[in-house]
């Protein structure tokens, strides 16, 4: 059954590339035994907390948390999840650097990681823009100069709070979620990179 239908091709390009036990494994190579490995998952967990607290914040509109103590607490959970998210991500990045985890055709994993980092910075930044308080006013007025100097400000206007709100709650988190999913699928697909051994000379790609 090697039909040329789009559906068949889509299945072969996706589902059939994975064995179920590669996607949800119950064992890992013996060398996967260090706390350094938990920071990718820790970053995901912080992202889950971010999305959960963020969704609660959306329920009553962007200015709710100024007047409600429940709202302020949820905002605090959201903020501290951001700090944890970045701490874990940076520790993860350091770990992957010292393991040279791009070896063996894993360059795309590294690159999707960096793109996730950049997408996170933009998502966090738009979050800061929509606090609807003095901090957001000041950040907007400073950031507009940076964006304008690159010609970006003509399209992304930091002073347009409505635009920042919609970007922060729709396009940017969706893009971040998509790139993180891609990153993780690549990791599962290739398997965890083996230790650096003296006799191995293979770089980013082998053969």
């Amino acid at each position, binding site marked *: 059954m090697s039909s040329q239908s789009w559906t068949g091709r889509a299945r072969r390009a996706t589902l059939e590339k994975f064995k179920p036990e590669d996607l949800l494994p119950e*064992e890992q190579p*013996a060398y996967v*035994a*260090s*706390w*350094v490995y*938990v*920071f990718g998952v820790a970053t995901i967990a912080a992202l889950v907390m971010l999305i959960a607290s963020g969704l609660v914040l959306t329920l009553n509109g962007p200015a709710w*948390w*100024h*007047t*409600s*103590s429940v*709202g*302020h*607490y949820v905002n*605090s959970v959201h903020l501290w999840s951001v*700090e944890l998210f970045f*701490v874990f991500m*940076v*520790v993860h990045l*350091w*770990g992957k650097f010292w393991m040279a985890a791009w070896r063996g055709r894993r360059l795309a994993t590294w690159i999707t990681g960096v793109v996730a980092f950049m997408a996170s910075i933009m998502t966090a930044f738009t979050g800061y823009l929509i606090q609807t308080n003095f901090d957001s006013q000041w950040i907007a007025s400073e950031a507009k100069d940076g964006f304008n100097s690159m010609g970006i400000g003509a399209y992304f206007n930091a002073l347009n709070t409505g635009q920042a709100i919609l970007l922060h709650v729709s396009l940017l988190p969706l893009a971040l979620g998509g790139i993180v999913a891609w990153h993780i699928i690549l990791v599962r697909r290739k398997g965890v990179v083996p230790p650096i051994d003296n006799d191995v000379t293979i770089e980013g790609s082998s053969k």
Partner: protein
Amino acid sequence: MQLALINLNHPAHYFSFGPFAISGGNLAIIIAMCVIFIAALFIPFPHSNNFSQDDKKEDRK
């Protein structure tokens, strides 16, 4: 609306050296990051000592 056990709503303390200036809050986060990384390098990972070449089958259970 501040319901905090520790009140951070006061002017920050800044540490500066030459052109560098960093707030106590940011410094704390950066130090925490370094401490976490170093801890992750050194703290032994549970059950990581008990493999050898023929553990392979036993481990699978």
